[in-house]
C-alpha cells in the first residue's frame, strides 16, 4: 500500500494549521511514528480507535508526571484533614468526646483517609484533563473529513504548523515516505471559529440564576424579618391541633388548654404514703426508713451512689468528685461545691430530709426524681448513712473479735 502515491487533499481556507496523514493499520502507524519522532518534531500526535502497544515508545513519550501530582494531592489531603481536625477539635472548639484527648490520632484517621482519597482522585481527574489540554472544543485536524474515522477504523498521524520545525512540503514528504495512504492539509478557517453569541447569553443567564439562592439566603439572614421564614417542606410542623397557650374561643377565657379536674392523679403517681414518697409525715421529716433496711439495699445504694452521686460528691462523700474538682480548678462562677456528707449539718439531718434533697435537689444540685426510682433513692440515703457512720465510728461498732487488731 505504501508504494501507491498518497492523495493530498487541500481545502481552501487560511494559513496551513496541520497535516493529517492516514495509515493503513496499526503496525504502519507505529513505524511512521518512530520516523516522525526521529525527525525531531514536537507538536504532533497519533490518533487510533484503540490503544496500541508500543506506541508510547515509538512516539518517544516520556513517563507522565501524573503519579507525582496524585502523590502530592494525597499528601495535601492528609495534611489538610489533620490540620482541619486539629484546628476544629483541639483549638477552635475544644470538646472532650468519649474521654479521648483533644487531638486524638486514631479518631482522625478515617477523615484523613477519605480526604487523601478525595484529593488524590480530584488531582488525577483534573490532572488528566490539564495534561491533555482538555476540554478542547475545536482543533485544526477536525477540518479533515476522513479524520472522523479515527474513532472507528482509521489510523492517523497529525503534525501541527505551530511546530518550530514545520514546513509544509518537508512534512508532507516525510509523511509520504513514512507510508501514508492519504494526507489532508488542514487550514485555519476564515470564519466559524467564534463561539456563538447564544452561548455567552446562556452562560450569563445560568450565572445570574445561580446567584439568586445565595442572595436570598443572605437577605433572609441579614437581620430580623417580619414575615415568617420560608418553609418549603412542612413535614409534621403544621398540624390541626391547639398548642399550649393557644387561643380557642370555644372555652371561657379563650384558653385552648384545659386545666385538670381537681383531684386528678396521673397514672403511677398515687403517692398517699408521704413518708415513702416525700420523706415527710405532716410537716416533720421522717427519721425511720420507710423501706426495709438490708445488706442488699446498702449494696444497691452504693452502686447507685457511685453512678449518680460520686461524680460530684466523691466516692467517699467528701465532696471531691471529678466534676467538683474540675469546676473548682476552673473557678466556675456559678459553682457551689457540695458539702461534705460527713459535715455536722448533713450528719444531723433526718433520713427524710436527705431523701428530699436527692428527690428535689438543693442549691446547684439538680433534682434526681426523674432519674432514680423511689426505692433506689432510699437505698442511696441508706448508703449515705452507712458512709457517715464509717467516718464517725466508735470502737463499739467493731465486732468483738476484731477489736484486738485495731489496737
Amino acid at each position: 500500500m505504501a508504494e501507491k502515491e498518497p492523495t493530498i487533499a487541500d481545502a481552501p481556507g487560511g494559513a496551513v494549521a496541520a497535516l493529517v496523514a492516514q495509515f493503513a493499520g496499526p503496525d504502519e502507524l507505529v513505524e511512521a511514528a518512530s520516523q516522525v519522532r526521529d525527525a525531531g518534531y514536537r507538536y504532533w500526535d497519533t490518533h487510533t480507535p484503540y490503544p496500541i502497544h508500543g506506541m508510547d515508545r515509538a512516539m518517544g513519550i516520556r513517563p507522565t508526571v501524573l503519579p507525582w501530582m496524585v502523590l502530592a494531592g494525597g499528601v495535601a489531603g492528609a495534611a489538610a484533614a489533620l490540620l482541619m481536625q486539629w484546628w476544629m477539635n483541639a483549638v477552635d472548639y475544644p470538646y472532650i468526646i468519649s474521654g479521648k484527648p483533644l487531638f486524638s490520632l486514631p479518631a482522625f484517621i478515617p477523615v484523613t483517609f477519605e480526604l487523601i482519597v478525595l484529593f488524590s482522585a480530584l488531582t488525577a481527574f483534573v490532572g488528566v484533563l490539564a495534561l491533555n489540554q482538555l476540554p478542547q472544543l475545536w482543533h485544526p485536524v477536525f477540518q479533515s473529513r476522513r479524520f472522523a474515522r479515527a474513532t472507528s477504523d482509521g489510523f492517523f498521524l497529525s503534525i501541527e504548523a505551530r511546530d518550530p520545525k514545520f514546513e509544509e512540503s518537508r512534512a508532507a514528504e516525510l509523511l509520504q515516505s513514512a507510508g501514508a495512504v492519504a494526507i489532508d492539509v488542514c487550514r485555519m478557517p476564515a470564519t466559524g471559529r467564534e463561539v456563538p453569541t447564544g452561548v455567552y447569553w446562556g452562560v450569563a443567564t445560568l450565572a445570574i440564576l445561580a446567584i439568586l439562592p445565595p442572595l436570598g439566603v443572605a437577605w433572609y439572614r441579614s437581620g430580623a424579618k417580619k414575615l415568617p421564614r420560608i418553609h418549603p417542606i412542612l413535614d409534621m410542623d403544621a398540624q390541626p391541633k391547639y398548642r399550649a397557650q393557644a387561643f380557642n374561643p370555644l372555652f371561657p377565657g379563650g384558653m385552648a388548654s384545659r386545666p385538670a379536674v381537681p383531684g386528678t392523679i396521673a397514672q403511677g403517681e398515687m403517692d398517699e404514703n408521704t413518708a415513702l414518697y416525700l420523706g415527710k409525715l405532716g410537716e416533720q421529716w421522717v427519721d425511720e426508713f420507710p423501706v426495709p433496711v438490708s445488706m442488699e439495699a446498702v449494696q444497691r445504694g452504693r452502686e447507685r451512689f457511685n453512678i449518680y452521686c460520686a461524680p460530684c460528691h466523691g466516692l467517699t462523700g467528701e465532696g471531691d468528685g471529678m466534676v467538683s474538682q474540675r469546676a473548682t480548678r476552673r473557678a466556675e462562677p456559678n459553682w457551689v461545691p457540695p458539702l461534705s456528707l460527713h459535715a455536722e449539718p448533713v450528719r444531723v439531718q433526718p433520713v427524710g430530709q436527705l431523701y428530699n434533697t436527692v428527690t428535689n435537689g438543693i442549691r446547684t444540685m439538680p433534682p434526681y426524681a426523674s432519674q432514680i426510682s423511689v426505692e433506689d433513692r432510699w437505698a442511696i440515703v441508706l448508703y449515705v448513712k452507712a458512709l457517715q457512720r464509717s467516718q464517725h465510728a466508735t470502737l463499739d461498732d467493731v465486732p468483738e473479735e476484731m477489736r484486738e487488731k485495731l489496737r
Partner: protein
Amino acid sequence: MMRPTATLRIHDDHVTLAALGARAFPLLAGIGLAALALAAVLGAVRGDGFSYFFHSYLTNYCFVLSIALGALFFVLIQHATRAGWSVAVRRISEILAANVSVLLVLFLPVLAPVLLGSHALYEWTSPAAVAGDHLLEHKSPYLNVPFFGIRCVFYFAVWWLITRFFLRRSVQQDHSGDASLTLSMERFSGPALLLFAVTVTFAAFDWLMSLEPRWFSTIYGIYYFSGAILAGVAAIVLAAAALQASGRLTMSVTAEHYHDLGKLLFGFVIFWGYIAFSQYMLIWYANIPEETVYYLARQTNGWAGVSLALAFGHLLVPFVGLLPRSMKRRKGVLAFWCVWLLVFHWLDMYWLVMPNYSPDAGPPFGLIDVALLVGLVCLYLASAVRVAGGEALVPIKDPRLGESLALENF
C-alpha cells in the same frame, strides 16, 4: 490483544517440573517430617502438657493454610472476572491451592486433642471453665466440641471440592483444549466465592478467635482473609520466580505479570491495614472492657513491640516500598517484598495466637517455632510438588493464554 507470535512462544518454553519434582519431593517430605518430629520432642521436653507446642503449631498451621486459601481466592477471582492477564500464573496458584488433603492431615494435631478432650488450646472445650461463666454458657450452643468437629469437616470438604474442581478442569483443558471448560469454571466461580467467604470466615472464628472465647469481633474473618490473600499472591510470585530461576517458564511469565501481581499485593497491603484499623478503631473508641481486653493483652507485657512491628512492617513500610512502578516490575525486588510480607504475615499469625499462651511473660520464641514452620512449609511444598506432577505449569490450551502472554502494562 492477541498476537500470533505470542501464542507460539509457549511451545519453546520449559513448562513442566519433570525431574525436579522427583528430586524435590523426597527431600521436602523428609525435611518436613524430621522437623515436625524435632518439634514434637521439643514440645514434650517443655513439660507444659504440649501447651506451647499446640499454640505454636496453630500459628504455623494458620500461616501455611492462609497461603493455600489466598491462592485459591486468586484462582476464583480470575475466573469470576474473566481475567486474561493472569492465565500465565494461574496454574501455579491452582497447584498452591489444591493441597487440601495434606492440610487436613496436618490439621489433625489441632483437631484430635480437642476431640479427645484436651483443653490445652481452647478454653471453651473445658466444661469446668464454661460452667458459671455467663458468656461461655451463652455461646455453648455454637462453641462445643461435636459441632466444632462437624464444622471442620465441612470447611475441608468445601475447600477440597473447590480446589479439585478448578485444578482438574484446568488440567483437563491442557489435554483437550475444550473452551467450554473455561465457561464451566467461570460459572462455578461465583458460588465458589460465596462458599469460600463463608468457610474462611467461620474457620477463622473457630480456630483463632475462639482462643479468646469471651471476646468477639465480626470483622475477624475478613482480617484473616486479608492476610491470606497477601500470603497467597506473595507465594505465587515467589513460586514463579523460583521456577524461572530453575529455567522454567522463562518465556511465559514476564515483568508485566510481576507488575500486575505487585499491584495486587500493594492493594491488599492497604486492604489489610484498612481492616486491621477498622477493627482497632471501633474497639478503641467504644472503650468497652469486654472488647478492649483483646488489644490490652497486645499492648502490655512486651506485646506492644509486636503490635507496632505489624503496623510498620505489615502496612507502612511495604506501602511505601511497593508504591513505585519499578519495584513491582523487577523480579528480584518484588521477590524481596514477597518474602518481607510473608515474614510479617507470619508475625501477624503469631500475634493472633501467642498472646493467649503468654499474656504476662511477653512474646515467646524458640527453636520449636522454627522447627514447626520449616516442617509445615516443607510438607506443604512437598504436597504441591506432588500435585503439580508432570503436568504443565501453565494452562497451555487456555483460550486466553495468548492475551496473557501478550500482556503489556501502559
